[in-house]
């Protein structure tokens, strides 16, 4: 699972097939391709009515008609035999399209069957089929097609078969890998658990999920088949009874169009080929974008500028200790396709020296977005719309990229959820730790850097020989330790730990937590610990910020949160969380599910699920009320310090 989970997903169709049209319609490339394709199909189908002349007859043609330039009589001029280029062009479209579609059909059926059989049944059969496919893949297509067609009859049917029988290799590979991917998905396992047989699984589960990829690949195969046919024709191997575009070009090229300057005889048929192939390419590309939507964005895209707000000087320090990080009224939005998701709204907290603050919330509460905003690592669609992040004398929210890069890691570092890919798989772990050191402490001699890397690894319990290993050689727990070592490499003041133990076993989690705690005490770190685990929070944290739907629900010391929670969400959450010391306690749950950030309810974000909500809750968002002892609650029920 990727680190950033709060990004809005692209609009998902309400049903795969009928809902497919809407997003496809928006895809300009695909629509243009489709229109282009339809237009040429119309030309091919209605050729007899569209062509001004019949290319088969030579009636009334004399040698004076050869290579006449475009005129009113002949819009595209005449060719080497005096025939109308436009008419030849129109009829020629038929050959290209027929060969293209039928040959592709053969290839796709063969490739599809081989791919599914190989992928689904596996074992020796798969091995055999794939070896065969790979062998055929290596052997160059065109020379083989040329040889076979040259030795047999160059009829249209023959050409279709040869191109079709040699064009299945890419389809087979793609279908096989997709079949393998689908085969290992849980719903297939479920189908087996129900007792479904192989045929049922292939028809109802594998095929529907292979189909989208197959369609995209089919388009590619059709375009390749058309290119192959035109090339064959250009080399003189076309069906002599037809006049495809490739053949038109062959004759023109061979019979003096170049020297005579008859550009129309050369340009027009070629443009036809380009039109068809391009239409298919655009259509295929568009289809792929719709069926396999990738987030067309990446981490290095420039972000949106922060909306500046006045820094109100309310040095309202919650305790005596030094304030390292002061987050004030921070709001973060995601802007996407005219939709705005208000992921974080008006959140404030303070991090003091040596403090460990727990940031608690469930999916969609905005805690990861908040952390990313602090480090200015929001994705391209994210934007800080108000508030400030005071670190020392600077407001991190308004710094430029270069200024921020100076503070990252040296001042504030972050430990991500131990995803497999949080470390670069093709570089050694030691290398990646050293990189941070070299960046922020330039001029350090190589030997010193090395020693420091080993020192850091030892600090987290990894022995020196692992320094030159790659991430995939580390276990999950080790990888997380390495991330911790890396995060400490530049002696930061603040460390953000974003769900560092969520994916780990209980015992490993205990090891990591103990490590973090001892490091905190040893190095005097301040830590922001993001989690959904209320048990961990109780064990580790000094203060707690509970978030729901992007807003602060409650913010207080750990003792207060657990023993005197005032926000209904906090109370319900505690009731839903198991306590091993009270095993018979029947757990409760909160009905409903977290709000969608694009369509937030008016008023309190928790109101739809709140057991004690009343009318005001649905219309007015509660303010952040401060109870005594630095206890903040955003609930109408605690207005005027009325404690519940």
């Amino acid at each position, binding site marked *: 699972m*990727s*680190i950033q989970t709060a990004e809005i997903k692209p609009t998902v169709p309400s049903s795969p097939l009928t809902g497919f049209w809407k997003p496809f319609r928006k895809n300009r490339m695909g629509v243009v391709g489709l229109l282009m394709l339809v237009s040429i199909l119309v030309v091919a189908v209605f050729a007899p009515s569209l062509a001004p002349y019949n290319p088969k007859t030579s009636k009334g043609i004399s040698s004076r008609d050869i290579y006449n330039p475009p005129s009113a009589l002949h819009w595209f001029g005449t060719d080497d035999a005096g025939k109308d280029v436009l008419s030849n062009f129109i009829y020629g479209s038929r050959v290209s399209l027929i060969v293209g579609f039928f040959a592709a059909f053969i290839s796709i059926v063969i490739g599809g069957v081989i791919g599914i059989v190989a992928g689904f049944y596996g074992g020796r059969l798969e091995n055999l089929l794939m*070896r065969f496919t790979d*062998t055929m*893949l*290596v*052997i*160059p*297509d*065109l*020379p*083989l097609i*040329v*040889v076979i067609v040259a*030795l*047999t*009859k160059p009829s249209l049917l023959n050409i279709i078969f040869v191109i079709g029988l040699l064009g299945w290799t890419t389809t087979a590979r793609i279908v096989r890998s997709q079949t393998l991917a689908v085969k290992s998905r849980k719903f297939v396992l479920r189908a087996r658990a129900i007792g479904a047989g192989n045929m049922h699984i292939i028809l109802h589960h594998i095929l529907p999920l292979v189909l989208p990829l197959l369609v995209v690949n089919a388009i590619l195969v059709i375009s390749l088949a058309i*290119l192959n046919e*035109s*090339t064959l024709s*250009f*080399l*003189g191997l076309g069906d002599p009874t037809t006049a495809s575009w490739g053949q038109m*070009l062959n004759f023109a*090229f061979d019979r003096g169009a*170049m020297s005579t300057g008859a550009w129309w005889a*050369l340009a027009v048929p070629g443009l036809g*080929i*380009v039109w068809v192939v*391009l239409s*298919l*390419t*655009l259509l295929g590309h568009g289809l792929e974008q719709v069926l396999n939507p*990738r987030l*067309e*964005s*990446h*981490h*290095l895209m420039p972000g949106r500028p922060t909306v500046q707000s006045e820094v109100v000087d309310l040095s309202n320090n919650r305790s005596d200790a030094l304030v390292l990080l002061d987050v004030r009224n921070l709001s973060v939005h995601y802007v996407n396709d005219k939709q705005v998701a208000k992921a974080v709204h008006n959140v404030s907290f303070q991090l003091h020296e040596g403090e460990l603050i727990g940031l608690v919330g469930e999916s969609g509460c905005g805690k990861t977005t908040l952390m990313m905003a602090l*480090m200015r*690592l929001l994705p391209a669609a994210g934007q800080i719309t108000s508030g400030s992040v005071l670190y020392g004398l600077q407001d991190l929210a308004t710094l430029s990229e*270069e200024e921020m*890069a100076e*503070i*990252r*890691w040296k001042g504030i570092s*972050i430990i*991500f959820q131990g995803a497999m*890919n*949080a470390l*670069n*798989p*093709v*570089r050694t772990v030691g290398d990646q730790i050293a*990189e*941070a050191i070299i*960046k922020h402490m330039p001029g350090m001699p190589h030997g010193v850097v090395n020693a420091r890397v080993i020192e850091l690894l030892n600090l987290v319990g990894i022995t020196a020989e692992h320094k030159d290993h*790659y991430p995939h*050689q580390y276990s999950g727990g080790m990888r997380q330790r390495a991330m911790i070592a*890396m995060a400490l490499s530049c002696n930061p003041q603040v460390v953000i730990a974003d769900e560092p133990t969520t994916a780990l076993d209980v015992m490993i989690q205990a090891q990591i937590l103990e490590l973090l705690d001892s490091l905190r005490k040893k190095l005097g770190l301040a830590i922001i610990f993001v989690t959904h685990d209320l048990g961990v929070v109780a064990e580790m944290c000094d203060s707690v910020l509970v978030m729901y739907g992007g807003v602060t629900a409650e913010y207080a010391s750990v003792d207060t949160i657990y023993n005197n929670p005032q926000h209904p969400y906090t109370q319900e959450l505690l009731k839903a969380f198991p306590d091993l010391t009270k095993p018979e306690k029947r757990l409760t749950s909160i009905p409903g599910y977290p709000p969608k950030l694009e369509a937030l309810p008016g008023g309190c974000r928790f109101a739809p699920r709140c057991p004690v909500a009343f009318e005001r809750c649905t219309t007015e968002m509660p303010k952040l009320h401060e109870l005594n002892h630095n206890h903040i609650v955003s609930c109408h029920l605690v207005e005027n310090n009325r404690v519940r």
Partner: protein
Amino acid sequence: MKRYRYLLQKIGWSAFTILFVLVLNFFIFRVLPGDPVKAGTHDPRFKKENQEAMRVRFGLDKPVINCFETLNPIKVGDCWINPFDTQFFIYLRNLIQGDLGISYHTNGPVSDILTVRLWNTVLLIGAGQILSIIVGIVFGLFAAWKARTAIDYSALITGLVAWSLPTFWLGIILLFWGSRHGFPIGGRITPGISSYPLSYQIGDIARHMILPTLTYTIVYMGEYLLIMRSSLMDVLSEDYILTAKAKGLSNFQILKDHALKNAMLPIVTIIAINLGFTVAGAIQIERVFSWPGLGGAVYEALERRDYPLLQGVFLLIAVSVVIANLIADLMYSYLDPRVQVE
């Protein structure tokens, strides 16, 4: 798996593929109608003494292979004959000795014709491939870097259009324009250039190479552009890129130290897969520009129905592609540490 085992497996597999190609080659020319080798013996262009030499060299009176007298039409024969006394093994033996047959047209050894042409094609394909890789990668990189901007969209469209152009047609158009603007109309050299000093000769070849290489580059860079773009965009969305950014590295540093190597790995695979396609391109370009290479040889063999030449060229092309694929595979294994280490 261990490195040497991986290498051995790959080499073994390539050897098998080459064998497969040899067998395929043999059987195509025997199975398909109009057994051209036999037909050659009746071809009037063929000198009598060469017909005899063919008969002896290729054992045309012997059975094709054990159990089969002839393959077209299929006539079953004796299975227990000496396998070394069949056309198939004579064919293999001749191949090992570098004998690819005698051309109908020149009445000389096919291998003589091809050796010269091989290098001409390598020169052309080599230059074209290198340029298209460089251009494609650079444009693709920029497109991904500036994702979703005008630069990205125009690069994308350029790539898609370039990919959709038929190679021979682009050559024709460029040649049409070029021949009217001072470029040579075809061939590799200007006749009579050999009397000039070497530098002139090299310059002459270079001038003749410009248009065909340009054709090559435009057509093939499209694919590299598209692959590089999507590969780099994938890499730049990976978690470790975010980690690198969190470490305070600049975008340029991240690109250089983290993204490029990973993004380039698929390119190496594509180069390998493309080798088959580049040969197809060579056949077309060499015809249009009359470049005396292997591709041109294919066309001439087709035109002149010179089957021994066709067979020899096909074999040479196929084997070269297999070997080139092997080299690309081996290179990939050196680049990706996940393959090396167990």
